[in-house]
């Protein structure tokens, strides 16, 4: 396990150990996260890619201490968060901030930009004089690139584009000086021409203030832009099917699902056409096998064993892979 010791000096800011999250509903139970372990060191960017239903958001909520795992433990700087007294835990939670996907519904439409930020500042710093609040607000707006800041003070969310709203959300998350920001699809609802600049902002904040990022997305290409050297988790149906350094996984995927994400996340390479056809041919929905590999029904290389047995996560070529035939895709790529 690549735990705190392997990384040498840096103890993990947050360690998730064998996390399981099970939701109970009318139609039975859903395992949203299945046996996922993950370390985030201070200043590190960790990326998670997956489609809807992969459990990536639930994992992000566990990391931000917004969701209690059904089993497994969350360690904050080596301490089990279940054993940290409530008062201290509250202080820790404040510094684990969550930036939501939808910049349209995560802002109060009747609050101005100034009020949106001022309310949070006043909450965190009781008794702070109003002149100081204003100075902090201007400073925050400057930091997230809403400039000139004076221009934005009295604007309301409906005056702002999606990109600007997401900057405001990020500014709000910066107020408690966070140690970790969970950025859950922060650019997926933002127009293409403005996505890049929001990712630049996150990159910049990580570099200058050392805030750790847990970047969650369904668009692999954005990880290549934001954090090519980051640790990448590829999730499917609650399981991590491949884990490795982002650019290495993208250069040489070892799990068929990672390969599928790369093939479909590419648009310019004409050579990939036959590969796309292969996956599309196998994409017909045939239910989700409950026992075997979650990708078996859509995997062009699935064999009988894949439908029967869940592949365990094993170390393979410096990665962690959950596939019965790891590396078989190598000959196709």
């Amino acid at each position: 396990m690549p735990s705190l010791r392997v990384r040498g000096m840096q103890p993990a800011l947050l360690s998730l150990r064998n996390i399981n999250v099970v939701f109970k509903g009318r139609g039975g139970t859903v395992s949203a996260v299945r046996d996922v372990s993950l370390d985030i060191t201070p200043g590190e960017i960790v990326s998670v890619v997956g489609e809807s239903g992969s459990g990536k958001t639930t994992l992000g909520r566990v990391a931000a201490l917004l969701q209690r795992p059904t089993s497994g433990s969350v360690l904050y700087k080596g301490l089990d968060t279940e054993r940290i007294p409530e008062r201290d835990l509250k202080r820790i939670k404040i510094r684990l901030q969550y930036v939501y996907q939808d910049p349209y519904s995560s802002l109060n439409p009747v609050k101005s930009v100034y009020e949106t930020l001022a309310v949070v500042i006043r909450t965190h710093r009781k008794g702070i004089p109003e002149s100081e609040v204003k100075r902090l607000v201007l400073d925050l707006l400057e930091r997230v690139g809403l400039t000139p800041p004076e221009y934005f003070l009295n604007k309301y969310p409906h005056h702002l584009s999606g990109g600007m709203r997401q900057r405001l959300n990020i500014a709000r998350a910066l107020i408690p000086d966070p140690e970790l920001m969970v950025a859950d699809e922060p650019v997926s609802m933002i127009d293409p021409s403005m996505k890049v600049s929001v990712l630049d902002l996150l990159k910049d904040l990580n570099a200058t203030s050392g805030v750790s990022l847990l970047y969650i997305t369904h668009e692999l290409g954005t990880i290549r832009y934001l954090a090519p050297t980051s640790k990448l988790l590829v999730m499917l149906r609650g399981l991590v099917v491949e884990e490795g350094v982002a650019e290495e996984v993208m250069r040489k995927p070892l799990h068929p699902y990672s390969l599928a994400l790369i093939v479909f996340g590419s648009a310019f390479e004409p050579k990939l056409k036959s590969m796309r056809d292969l996956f599309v041919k196998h994409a017909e929905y045939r239910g989700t096998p409950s026992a075997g590999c979650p990708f078996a029904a859509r995997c062009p290389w699935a064999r009988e064993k894949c439908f029967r047995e869940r592949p365990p996560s094993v170390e393979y070529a410096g990665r962690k892979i959950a596939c019965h035939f790891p590396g078989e895709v190598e000959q196709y790529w």
Partner: protein
Amino acid sequence: MSSGREILRADDIVADYVVREGLIRAADHVTLAVLENEVLGLVGESGSGKTTLIQAVTRVGPYNMKVKGRVLFEGKNLLEMEEKEIRRIRGRLIAQVFQAAQNSLNPFIRVWDHFLETFRSHYPDVSEEEVRERAVELLSRVGLDEQVLGMYPHQLSGGMKQRVVIALALLLDPRLVFLDEPVSALDLLTQKQVLRYLLELKRSGKTTMVYVTHDIESLFELADRLAILYAGVLVEEGGTSDVVKEPLHPYTQGLMQSLMTVDIDVSKVRSIPGSPPSLLLHLKPKGCPFVDRCPHAASKCRDVRPELREAERGRKVACHLYG
């Protein structure tokens, strides 16, 4: 392949929304033709007016939307037609598939009843056998089995529902199908699968489609031509590979540079600075709508709106850089 015959022509379309602050001009003098048997990709970011444009053309916009201009379809102006007359065209000659169309299926009735109801609303006397035959054929064209007819929507996956909706849209053999972000609500693999079926429909050579999306890269394979909208203005129009390989308008150039697919050179990725202008008529730039974000902006761009003009054969651009 397209015959080059115009199947629909929108002429100088202006669509305004009446709001408290004034008028929002979401389609700003758009002129655009759809050619027979082609797939035309209508590309724009949020607020670019792409949905407004197709709503204006088919007259399904909200009550506060005012439309001016002319829409020629089969020699008639759709905008001057009686409501009764256009209702006979919508669904039969012009079909539409909306974003999250899977929600447009009625959860209480089987897929079969959707087909029967749709057919009978235009042809009350049609026999069940005839509808069934047609439904089975269409379902097979989108890769679905006959069994689907006996199912309720909740028994289908998102991709299957979307394909049912596409099959339904094709039921009455429309001349023209509008698809508004038909796959954005689906998973990646499912998206590509639905796109693949649309590609096959196109290859069968009998369907004219207008495909509306903000994802230009999803159209590289499917669309024959692209029309790029920015702030309600049609800024560029041309063959897909031309527009993708050598975009003419500075906005299209910026858009192509901001794509973050897995196979791009990340060192060349750039954001377009700033954000789109307000669409409120009194705030919208008098000249080119892209002027505030354009690296080539000159004083003329601020004062004079560039007209959409032919730059090369089959390519049009609305920019002062091109004469």
